[in-house]
C-alpha cells in the first residue's frame, strides 16, 4: 500500500485541501453520503458504494474524517432476531382466532386446538388484549369485528416476526413498542445491541459535493503495461501527500575511522608527505631508549605498557645502542648532561606493543638521515589502560616528521595549522608541553564549538635523540589523536562505539 500516500501516513499536514486531493474512495464515500441525505451508517454507505472490503472503506473514511469532510459518531443500535432461527409458529392468539371464526366455543374446547394446552392462558390474554374476541356470558370466546378484520390481515407483531425470518430487524420509533411487547413474551425474539458508526457530512464535505466530485478511476502506480499501451491517459494520476513519511534508507559505508584516515592521508600527501608504516611489535630500545626516555620513566612501567612474553627479546644494533647509552648516561657528544644513571642493555631488549607511532618515524629517520624527509603514518598504538567511555587500550595516532635544513618551531606551527585547516578545524592553539624526546614540546588544541580540545603533542626532536642516530638537521614531529577527531566530527561521546559498533548506527553515520 506504500504507493498510495493516503494509506501510509498518519495525519496529513495542512488543513486547507481541495477536493482534488481526495482519493477516489474518499470521493465515492462523499458522493454516497450526499445521496443518503448527508447522514448514514457505515452499513448504508457500504451498501451504496462498492468497496473491496471493510478495510478500504474504513481507511478512506478515516482520511475524510481527518481532513474535516465528515464527522463520524458511534451509537448503540438495537436489533432483534427470532429466538430459534427459522422457526416461526403461529402465535397462540392467531390459532384461537382462526378456531373461533366458525362460532363461539368454550375456553376448554379452544385449549384442545392448541399445540400446547398450557398456552391457553397466554392465547386468551392476547386475544382479548388485541380486541379480537370477548367472552360471552356463558364463558365462550366470541369473535369481535376487529377480530374478523384480523383474520385476513396479520398484526404488526406478526409482520415483524415474518421479516425476522429474512434477517434482523432494527428498532425504530415506529416498531419500538411492538418489539418491546414481543420481547416481553420471551419465547419469540432476542435483542442484539450493536455499536454502529454514523457518518454525517460537515460543511467542508457539502462544499466539495457542490463543487462536483469526479468519480473517475485514480491511478497510484504507473506500470510498464500502462506506459506501453498508453492506457495511463484514461486515468487520473493521483497526487500524493508528499509530506507523508517514507521508508528509511540506510546503506553500507566506510567506517568513520577508516574514512577519516583516508582523508588525513590525502591531506598529508597533498602537503608533500609520504606514507610510512612499521611493526606493532617493537623493543623498548626503539620505542623508548632511542627517544631519550629514561629507563625509570613511569611510561615504561608494567602499569602503562603492554610487554610481550613472545617474542620475549629483540636486540638493538650494538653501535647505535652504545651511542644511545652515552646520551642517557652522560649526554655523550650531544652537548647534554644526560639523565645521569646507569643504562641497562637488557632493559632495552624487552619487547612491547608500540606505545606510539613515533617509533616508526625514528626508525625511518635512522635510515634516512639526509634532508628533506617528510613522512607520515596513521597507525594503531597500545597503552595498558582499562577501557571506558574515554579510554581504549589500543587506538590510532596520526604521526608525522619533517626534516629540512631550515626546519624550525615556526614551521612546525605552520604545518600543524595547515593540516587542521585542511581537516576543517580552522582555529588551533599551541601550548608548551613536555615529551622526553622533543624540545621545544607543544600541546596541540583545536577550537570546536567554542571549546579548546586537546588533540595531541608535537615538538622538535632533542639533540640527544638525533645525534646518536647521526642526524644533523632539525626534525619537526607530531603525534596527534585520531579517535577524538572522529568523535567530534560524528558527534560521538563514547569512544567504544567506534570499535564495538552498532552496525545499524554505522550505516547511519554522517558522511562528514
Amino acid at each position, binding site marked *: 500500500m506504500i504507493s498510495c500516500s493516503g494509506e501510509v501516513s498518519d495525519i496529513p499536514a495542512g488543513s486547507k485541501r481541495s477536493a482534488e486531493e481526495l482519493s477516489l474512495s474518499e470521493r465515492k464515500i462523499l458522493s454516497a453520503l450526499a445521496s443518503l441525505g448527508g447522514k448514514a451508517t457505515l452499513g448504508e454507505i457500504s451498501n451504496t458504494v462498492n468497496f473491496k472490503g471493510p478495510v478500504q472503506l474504513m481507511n478512506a473514511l478515516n482520511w475524510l474524517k481527518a481532513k474535516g469532510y465528515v464527522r463520524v459518531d458511534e451509537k448503540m443500535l438495537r436489533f432483534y432476531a427470532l429466538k430459534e432461527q427459522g422457526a416461526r409458529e403461529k402465535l397462540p392468539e392467531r390459532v384461537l382466532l382462526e378456531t373461533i371464526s366458525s362460532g363461539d366455543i368454550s375456553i376448554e374446547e379452544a385449549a384442545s386446538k392448541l399445540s400446547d394446552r398450557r398456552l391457553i392462558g397466554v392465547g386468551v390474554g392476547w386475544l382479548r388484549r388485541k380486541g379480537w374476541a370477548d367472552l360471552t356470558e356463558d364463558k365462550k370466546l366470541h369473535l369481535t369485528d376487529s377480530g374478523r378484520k384480523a383474520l385476513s390481515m396479520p398484526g404488526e407483531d406478526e409482520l415483524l416476526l415474518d421479516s425476522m425470518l429474512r434477517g434482523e430487524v432494527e428498532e425504530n420509533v415506529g416498531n419500538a413498542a411492538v418489539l418491546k411487547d414481543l420481547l416481553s413474551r420471551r419465547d419469540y425474539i432476542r435483542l442484539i445491541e450493536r455499536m454502529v458508526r454514523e457518518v454525517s457530512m460537515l460543511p467542508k464535505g457539502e462544499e466539495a459535493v457542490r463543487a462536483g466530485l469526479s468519480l473517475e478511476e485514480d491511478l497510484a502506480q504507473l506500470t510498464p503495461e500502462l506506459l506501453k499501451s498508453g492506457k495511463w491517459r484514461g486515468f487520473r494520476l493521483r497526487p500524493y501527500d508528499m509530506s507523508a513519511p517514507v521508508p528509511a534508507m540506510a*546503506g*553500507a*559505508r566506510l*567506517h568513520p*575511522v*577508516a574514512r577519516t584516515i*583516508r582523508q588525513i592521508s590525502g591531506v598529508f*600527501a597533498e*602537503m*608533500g*608527505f*609520504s*606514507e610510512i*608504516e612499521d611493526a*606493532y*611489535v617493537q623493543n623498548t630500545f626503539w620505542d623508548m631508549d632511542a627517544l631519550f626516555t629514561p629507563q*625509570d620513566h*613511569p611510561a615504561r612501567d*608494567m602499569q602503562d605498557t*603492554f*610487554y*610481550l*612474553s*613472545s617474542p620475549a627479546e629483540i636486540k638493538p644494533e650494538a653501535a647505535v645502542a652504545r651511542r644511545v647509552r652515552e646520551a642517557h648516561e652522560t*649526554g655523550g657528544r650531544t*652537548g*647534554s648532561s644526560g639523565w*645521569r644513571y646507569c643504562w641497562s642493555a637488557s632493559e632495552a631488549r624487552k619487547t612491547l606493543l608500540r606505545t606510539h607511532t613515533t617509533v616508526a618515524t625514528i626508525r625511518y629517520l635512522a635510515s634516512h638521515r639526509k*634532508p*628533506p624527509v*617528510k613522512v607520515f603514518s596513521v597507525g*594503531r598504538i*597500545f597503552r*595498558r589502560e582499562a*577501557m571506558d567511555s574515554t579510554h581504549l*587500550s589500543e587506538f590510532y595516532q596520526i604521526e608525522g616528521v619533517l626534516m*629540512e635544513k631550515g626546519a*624550525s*618551531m*615556526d*614551521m*612546525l*606551527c*605552520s*604545518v600543524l595549522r595547515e593540516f587542521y585547516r585542511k581537516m576543517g578545524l580552522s582555529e588551533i592553539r*599551541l*601550548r*608548551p608541553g*613536555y615529551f622526553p624526546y622533543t*624540545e*621545544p614540546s607543544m600541546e596541540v588544541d583545536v577550537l570546536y564549538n567554542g571549546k579548546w580540545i586537546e588533540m595531541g603533542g608535537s615538538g622538535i626532536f*632533542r*639533540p640527544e635523540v638525533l645525534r646518536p642516530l647521526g642526524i644533523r638537521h632539525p626534525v619537526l614531529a607530531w603525534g596527534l589523536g585520531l579517535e577524538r577527531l572522529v568523535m567530534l566530527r560524528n558527534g560521538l561521546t563514547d569512544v567504544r562505539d*567506534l*570499535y*564495538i*559498533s*552498532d*552496525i545499524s548506527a*554505522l550505516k547511519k553515520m554522517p558522511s562528514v
Partner: protein
Amino acid sequence: MPVIDIPFGELRRLSGLDRSIEWFSDAIPMTGASFEGAEGDTMRFEFFPNRPDHYSVEGVARTLRSLYTDSPPPAYSISGIGGTLEVMESTRGVRPVIVCGIIRGIDMGAGLLQSMIDLQEKLHVTVGRRRRKVAIGLHDMEHVKFPLRYAAYGGGEYSFVPLGMSKELSLSGVMAEHEKGVEYGGILGDGPYPLITDAAGSVLSMPPVINGSMTQITEGTRDLFIDVTGTSRGACSGVLNILVAALADRGGRVEGVTLTEGGRSGVTPDLNANSFELTSSGITRLLGVQIGTADALSLLRRMGHSCEADGETIVARSPPYRMDIMHPVDLMEDAAIAYGFNRFGGTMPREQTVGSRLEMSSWSDGLAELMLGYGYTQVVTFMISGSTFEFGRMSAWKSDAVRIMNPVLEEYDMLRTSLIPGMLLLLEANKHNELPQRIFEIGDVHTPGCSRHFAALGIHPKASFAECKSLSDALGRDLRLAFEYAPSGDSRFIEGRRLAVRLAGEHVGMIGELHPDVITNFNLYNPIAAIEIDIQKALMLR
C-alpha cells in the same frame, strides 16, 4: 601527570599579579599546563613532569611573577650552616643519597602546612617514583639536637614512636604494623633499614617509610629541618631545592647542613645555578623567528634565568629548582615560552617534496569501495584478542601468536591471528539488529609475523557457501587476482562447504560456511558465510 590545586588568593598574593581567575586560567597553560577547571577559589591544573617546581602555588606564582612583572629572577642562597649530619657507610647499599636543608623563621599557618604536605606527596609520586627514587622528610626542629646521624640498622636494633602511632615499635615492627611500612616496605625489603637520628639518639626519620613522631610539624612550627633521601643525587638535590625555594618564597631563611661521609664533607642544599652557553642565532634557528641578543636576554630572564651576553654568546644560569635543564635547547624552549607559543606559525616548509601513499593503502581503498558496492559495511575491531576467542571459540584452530605478558584483562592476552574472531564478537554485540548483516574489515594480524588481512562475513537465515564463493569470484574478477580454489581441512568451516583460496600456487585465504560449533560458540544462531584473505601476500603474488 599530577593535577595540582592552586588557591586563587594565594596565587595572586605570591605572584603580585592583580588579575582575574580567568586571566590565570588562560596564562598558566601557556607556561606548560592543562587547565582542568575551577571550583570556587581553587583552580586545578595538570602540570607536565618536566616542571616539578610547578607542583605547588609557590612555584607557579614565581614563574608568573618573573614572566609578567619586571621583578628580577629571585636569588636563593644559604645564610650560614645550621647543623651537621654524619653519613655512615652502612647506608651505602641501602639508600645511598641524602641531602638536607634548614628553614628558619617560617609561619606554617594559613594554609602553608597543607600546601607543603601536598607538594611533598606530589613529588613523592612523580620525581620520587613512589618514594623509591626520592623521599622527603619534613621536621619541626624544636626538639632536634645536632649533630645528626644517617645510618642503617637491623630490624631489631632500634625502636621509636612512628608518626601516627602512640607506641614505640622496632624497625621490623614499623614495617609489619605501620600502614606506611606496609605500603613502602617493598623498597627496603628485609633491611637493614636507614634511620636519621639526632645527638640524643631520637629518631627523626626512617626513610622512605615514616618520620618519628618527635619532629611532627604543625601550624605552629617555626623552624624546619628537611631531609631528602634516595637513589639519585641529581633528583634528590632538585627536590630539596624545589622545597627550599618554595619555603624561601614564603619568607623562610635558608641554612645549610654540613654532611660528612668518611673523610669528606660538603654542604647542602646546593643552590648554585647550572650554567649553559647559547647564542641568539642558535635560538633564531631553532625557533624560526628573529631573536636578537638583547631579546634573548630579556626572554630568558623572564623565565627566571639570570644571564649575561659576551658578544654573541649568552651565558645563562638556570635557577637551582629547575630539574629539567640539561641542554641549551631547554633554555631555547624557555625563550619560546616567554616569546609566546601563539605567535608562531609564519613559515611553510621550503623544500619541494612529492607526497604519496603506500601502495597497500590506496589498493585497500579500492577494495573497500568494491565491498561497499557489494553491500558490506566496514567495521574496525581491536587487534588485542585472546586465546579464548582466537582458538577456543574458533574450534581448535591453532597458530603461533604474539603474546602479551601483562594483559589488562587476563583473557585478552595476544594479538589477533585472524580478523574473523573479532568480527564474530562484533556480530554477537549486534544480535539486536535485524538481519541480514554483512560486514568487512581490513586490518593487520600477527601469525606471529604481521600481515594485512581482509575478511567479510554475512549472517542471515539463508547465508550459504554460494554467498562467499560469489564474493571471492567477484573480488578476483574486479581486482584482477587470478584466484584458484583448492580443498581445505580448515575446521573453522563446514566440511564440503569450504575452500582454500590460492594465488600463483600459494595459499592466501579461505572461503566457506562457518562451522555450527563456531557460530554457536559466539552465541549466534544463523548461518554465516565467511571469507578471509591475506591481501599483503596476495598483492605480492599478483
